[in-house]
């Protein structure tokens, strides 16, 4: 059966793509953010995942309000990237893993998740930029992905509790997948931020730090919030925390925190980073 090596939760904002393209990683503005990632890459070198199951929202690239899914699961052989309207450099397509996608789809539907099944899907900055942070330097991505998108565009949003359950079901699916693959769980988005309204620029550092702590030791605590609670506490777009909650739900057994980082601001966003290792998987120890 497949092994879940652990979980990476990270913020994503389009501006990261611009900073990478312009080589600004060491600028004073960007350094505290980019400095968070070398330890993650060291961990990845050690646990060597083959495929990532990634939870994130689609920011109006694949889906429009004509037909907007609550949860969508990609089952494509390849996922192209797009500029999304800003003319930022388009990154390489990432390879899919249709066998794992369909195994996850079959499990989710059996578990009464009413997903949208996508044999074609583009990826936006919510997946391409985390990949670029984890595997910088260009070249082909050394990982396959199964993208799972969550609606944070139009209310009603799914709840944190439903997001957690989605993650749990995906975690069970991966662990029952007949494969010797090593699987990384990825959740991207957040932390607190708000783009719209007179409260634009809202950030809630105490709430974010509480969440980052809870995600290690007591994640189900976060499922007591409603989607609107998250809007209030984490900002209108801070609901993306649900991608972290889903990723944590997918992470089985005992976990240890490998690394974390938190820096405000990147663009309008409190940037968080959290890496958890699955202690129940047989993984190489740190040197």
């Amino acid at each position, binding site marked *: 059966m497949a092994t879940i090596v652990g979980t990476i939760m990270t913020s994503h904002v389009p501006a990261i793509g611009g900073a990478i393209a312009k080589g600004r990683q060491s600028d004073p503005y960007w350094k505290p953010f980019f400095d968070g990632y070398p330890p993650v890459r060291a961990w990845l070198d050690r646990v060597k995942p083959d495929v990532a199951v990634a939870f994130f929202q689609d920011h109006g690239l694949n889906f429009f309000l004509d037909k907007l899914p609550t949860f969508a699961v990609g089952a494509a052989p390849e996922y192209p990237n797009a500029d*999304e*309207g*800003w003319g930022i450099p388009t990154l390489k397509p990432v390879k899919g893993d249709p066998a794992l996608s369909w195994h996850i789809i079959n499990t989710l539907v059996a578990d009464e998740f009413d997903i949208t099944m996508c044999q074609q899907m583009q990826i936006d900055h919510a997946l391409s930029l985390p990949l670029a942070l984890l595997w910088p330097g260009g070249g082909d991505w050394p990982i396959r992905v199964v993208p799972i998108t969550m609606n944070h565009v*139009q209310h009603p949003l799914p709840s944190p509790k439903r997001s957690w359950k989605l993650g749990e079901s995906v975690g069970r699916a991966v662990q029952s997948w007949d494969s010797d693959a090593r699987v990384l769980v990825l959740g991207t988005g957040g932390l607190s931020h*708000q*783009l719209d309204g007179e409260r*634009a620029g809202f950030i809630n550092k105490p709430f974010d730090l509480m969440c980052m702590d809870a995600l290690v030791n007591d994640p189900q605590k976060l499922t007591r919030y409603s989607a609107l609670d998250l809007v209030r506490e984490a900002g*209108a777009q801070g609901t993306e925390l649900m991608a972290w909650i889903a990723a944590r739900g997918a992470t089985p057994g005992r976990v240890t925190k490998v690394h974390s980082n938190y820096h*405000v601001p990147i663009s309008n966003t409190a940037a968080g980073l959290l890496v958890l290792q699955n202690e129940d998987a047989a993984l190489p120890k740190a040197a």
Partner: protein
Amino acid sequence: MGAGKKDYGIPGTPIFDGDAAQKGYALNAMCYSFNSAENREAFKRDEDAYCAKFGLSPEQRAAIANRNVQQLIAAGGNIYYLAKFAGIFGLDVQDVGAQQTGMTKEAFKAKLVEAGR
């Protein structure tokens, strides 16, 4: 504040719900089309014709003409689609935030830095 009818009790925070989504459909459809560079060029070439093609309401057309984020949101615009419209002019989410809060961009950025302390 938002385009919807219901008050969700979160000050300064539009909630893009079914009411807003109905009101903003044409506007958001136009902004969604800006995922494509070709469509962004078509908009720049002939803004009137492009807006007419998507059937914007007069309120939406005026908000587009004014490049005014608050008006766009009041007309049913969703921030994720509006960001693609802002992108045409090279504006980022900090420009958008500064405009909505009535601050200079520098002051808005300083406010964000302050929030991290």
